[in-house]
């Protein structure tokens, strides 16, 4: 018996029947991002960070001292894994199926996120490219600023539904829409 397995996103049911047209405030759910968790061994933090920063097509997210998430929406997990190969002094684990990447943008994005996180997201305090772990809707998430009014949230897969619903609720007064995006 042959079995065909389809990739099914954890937020598939949550997004069923949502509006197709994106409003200015929009939440994009990235369908298949490549997310790797990287931990530097003691004493190798600086050299590992240098190697990771110079990786093409992948963005680095800060989690903790010597711990990062490497995110790529351009290429799949297998491609990124080959690209990284073995990093001296670091251990990495594929988290692509364990994490969900949400991209929220729009003119009111800070007002929406102010109800989700307790961190100062003012443009001067949280510059483009900054990222940190923080509680987002009671769930430990990684939040990064990817553009002037754009943020990326990485949440554990099993909490994604709860975070998604709460972010949508907070964005309702600003007509936040949501849809899948390819990358």
């Amino acid at each position: 018996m042959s079995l065909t397995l389809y990739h099914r996103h954890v937020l598939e049911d949550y997004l069923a029947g949502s509006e197709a047209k994106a409003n200015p405030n929009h939440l994009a759910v990235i369908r298949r991002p490549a997310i790797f968790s990287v931990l530097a061994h003691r004493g190798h933090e600086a050299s590992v960070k240098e190697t990771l920063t110079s990786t093409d097509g992948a963005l680095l997210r800060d989690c903790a001292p010597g711990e990062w998430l490497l995110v790529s929406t351009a290429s799949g997990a297998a491609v990124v894994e080959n690209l990284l190969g073995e990093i001296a002094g670091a251990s990495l684990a594929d988290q692509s199926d364990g994490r969900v990447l949400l991209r929220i943008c729009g003119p009111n994005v800070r007002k929406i996120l102010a109800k989700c996180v307790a961190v100062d997201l003012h443009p001067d305090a949280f510059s483009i490219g900054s990222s940190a772990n923080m509680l987002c809707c009671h769930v430990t998430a990684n939040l990064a600023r990817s553009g002037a009014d754009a943020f990326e949230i990485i949440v554990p897969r099993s909490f994604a539904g709860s975070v998604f619903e709460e972010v949508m609720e907070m964005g309702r007064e600003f007509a936040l829409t949501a849809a899948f995006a390819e990358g």
Partner: protein
Amino acid sequence: MASLITCPHCGTRPKEEFSIRGTALSRPHPTASEEDWHAYVYLRENPKGRYQEYWHHAGGCRRFLIVDRDNVTHDVFSVVDAAAIGRLSE
């Protein structure tokens, strides 16, 4: 009003991101007497005033911190990574 703790790695965060893990005691030597181990495991001062505690930044960098604070006035005097203290005494 939320109590704000300035994590050395993440910056100023609300107390909801942390879990308090009790007094920052130094661990007795493995061959220490039973009284010492009993004191380390069970006995706590519970002072009113300045207090040093382990705080785990569960909602952020997931590092153990030592928070030096006053539990009457809520003043926080210092927050350091517990590993930094450990390495100093090595």
